[in-house]
């Protein structure tokens, strides 16, 4: 009962936030220089044509009418039309979602798989070499910028070691380096989502695995996603390592840990079932918040790796000032952020019985 009330409240809050995002974006567009009709048609377009487009798009209406039109459209799930490609923004956003979600989840998995064991080792072997190693790693991870790390990974893995990973475009590669061919099957996957440089999407890879018992597709997908996932996940990994370490150390000092030792419980049970579980409560929160941030942060990683996700599309839209597309992507990211947060809060009450009681 309390749970439903809680969800309804969070949902209403979420709607309020989205409305704020929409309004701010609309305001920014209104005050930003450049006439949309000119942007659409290009410099030097026919004056009459420009005027006709202004009329058709309602650009001559008062600003509040334009605003109400836009919000009205949003309520019907209509994000408008891209000025550049004249395609439906909703479709343009949706087709890029899978790639970004794949990348975000892969980065999160990288972070969890590396960070939590590292944090546990660090906390349980405090002030030993392994702890220093983990601390150094997390310090480096937190202070390394994404774009640099991505470029370095490409340089080291692809250019120096020749692991076939498609770098940026077909432009010239450094002398002596292996020229990396384009993946052969750029195009659209079974579900109609663009595969871009990852070559194959995760759903396709799974389909191949299930229906054709073929692992080669999954292998290809893994090869393409590994470097971007490492790049996107490094900061996150470092952050979670630190949180796990400090959280574990805090928990280990609590009286109930002494009590579990007095019970004679085996060490792994004390460490994982009791201590780590309690440490996870705050970590889950950060994990959730960060997953939202990751979706936004994927912009840089996607650009470096030419990953066909929302971030790359956002950068493209910014470059050509395609406002409706830009707005659509940002609204979607905000929406995703809120949904993830609500899920995290719901999970939190599951993990921490004291919260659900309140």
């Amino acid at each position, binding site marked *: 009962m309390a749970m439903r009330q809680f969800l309804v409240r969070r949902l209403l809050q979420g709607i309020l936030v989205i409305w704020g995002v929409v309004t701010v974006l609309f305001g920014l567009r209104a005050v930003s220089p450049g006439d949309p009709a000119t942007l659409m048609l290009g410099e030097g377009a026919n004056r009459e044509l420009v005027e006709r487009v202004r009329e058709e798009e309602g650009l001559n209406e008062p600003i509040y009418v334009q605003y109400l039109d836009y919000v009205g459209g949003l309520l019907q799930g209509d994000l408008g039309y891209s000025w550049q490609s004249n395609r439906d923004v909703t479709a343009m956003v949706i087709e890029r979602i899978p790639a970004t979600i794949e990348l975000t989840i892969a980065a999160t998995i990288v972070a969890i798989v590396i960070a939590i064991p590292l944090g546990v080792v660090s906390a349980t072997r405090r002030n030993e070499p392994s702890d220093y190693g983990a601390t150094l790693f997390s310090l480096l991870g937190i202070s390394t910028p994404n774009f640099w790390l991505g470029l370095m990974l490409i340089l080291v893995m692809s250019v120096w070691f020749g692991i076939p990973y498609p770098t940026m475009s077909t432009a010239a590669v450094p002398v002596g380096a292996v020229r990396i061919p384009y993946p052969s099957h750029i195009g659209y996957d079974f579900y109609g989502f663009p595969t871009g440089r990852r070559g194959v999407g995760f759903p396709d890879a799974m389909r191949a695995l299930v229906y054709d018992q073929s692992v080669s597709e999954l292998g290809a997908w893994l090869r393409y996603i590994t470097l971007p996932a490492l790049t996107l996940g490094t900061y996150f990994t470092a952050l979670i390592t630190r949180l796990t370490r400090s959280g574990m150390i805090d928990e280990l000092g609590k009286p109930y840990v002494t009590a579990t030792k007095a019970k004679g419980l085996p060490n*792994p049970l004390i460490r994982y079932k009791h201590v780590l579980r309690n440490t996870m409560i705050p970590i889950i929160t950060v994990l959730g918040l960060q997953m939202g941030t990751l979706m936004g942060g994927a912009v840089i990683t996607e650009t470096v790796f030419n990953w066909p996700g929302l971030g790359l599309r956002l950068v493209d839209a910014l470059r050509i000032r395609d406002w409706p597309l830009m707005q659509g992507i940002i609204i979607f990211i905000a929406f995703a952020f809120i949904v993830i947060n609500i899920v995290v809060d719901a999970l939190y009450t599951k993990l921490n019985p004291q919260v659900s009681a309140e």
Partner: protein
Amino acid sequence: MSETILEIDDLSTQFFTSEGKVNAVHGFDLELERGEVFGIVGESGSGKSVTALSLMDLVESPGRITSGSVGYRNPSFAENMRTSYPDAVDGDLVDLRAIPEDARRSLRGTAFSMIFQDPESSFNPSLTVGEQIAEAVEVQQRATAMPRSGRAKTRGPEYSLGSYLMSMALPSKRYVTESSRARAIELLETVGIPDPAQRADEYPHEYSGGMLQRAMIAQALASEPDVLIADEPTTALDVTIQAQILDLLNELQAETGMTILLITHNLGVVARMCDRVGVMYAGEIVERGTLEDVFDDTVHPYTKGLLGSVPDLEGTADRLQAISGNVPSLLDHEMGDRCYFADRCPKAMDTCLEKPRSFDVDADGRHSVTCYLAEENYDPDRALEEGRFASEGAVSDVGGDSQ
């Protein structure tokens, strides 16, 4: 005199802090008889809790047990240890300080269990009470199924991280089995928790303090322990609940015949529960004996001070007799080699500048006191002048009742 179950000799636990070594427990001697309730009483900072933790081998860094032996009498355990560690075994008595940590720790939750002062922080807040008690049951049952000798020598199939990961995937591989859960509910019933099957599924924060302390006792009973160490079991509870918990402990002790080491600062609790009592001061026992010996034939001025500071409803005294001053510094380099109570003692004499040994008061050796007054009478002419230790007696309670 019945047989002893624990023979603690010269046990010392020190904390290595930046200010120096702190002697939380030093030269602690105690013989516990099977089936008795022995009380350790003393003020905050006297080393009571650290003693309890030392016996359980639960002293955490920067603390360490630096010397002494803890002899535990158990024929089957001694038999198991005899071949591997002949030096540690003397008849039925095994010196727990001389066997490896693994073997020593296998006794936790099987031979020894402990009740803590604050039940609310001594349960994990995010697991149900039933689950936590069932874990203790499981420890006991697994130990019974797999004798200790196997664990000590070959280290057997121990519970590892792999086992835990496995249990997350397969419920049948969980550490806690259904039968342990059922036993946990029985135990909750034993300690007088109404509706135990339902209460077992509740979390610690859904219990009241008294109920939770009952649950903790149930958890300690799950081990079917030889020795139960109760560290201030009633301190965090309301006075009315305190009596209930003590009665419960008394009942259970009578039923199971377990030995209880009861640690408290409350002389009322001691009088209600204990057969024998030891008065602890600055890390050592200064007076010990039966209740009558210590309460009625008190010798040590510190014990007298403690007794004098208890309100007496029928007494004639207008004011309580507080002991002046504080517990002395336990820093190794400040302690020196004298009677540690001398600077607070109303009857300190020049002899007290030398450390007294333990003197027997009675012929049967049951009542002993670490004070020269056991041997000679107070002579006012030899009294130490007031403020003799003022300069060195820095007040400190480091390493005291931290648990």
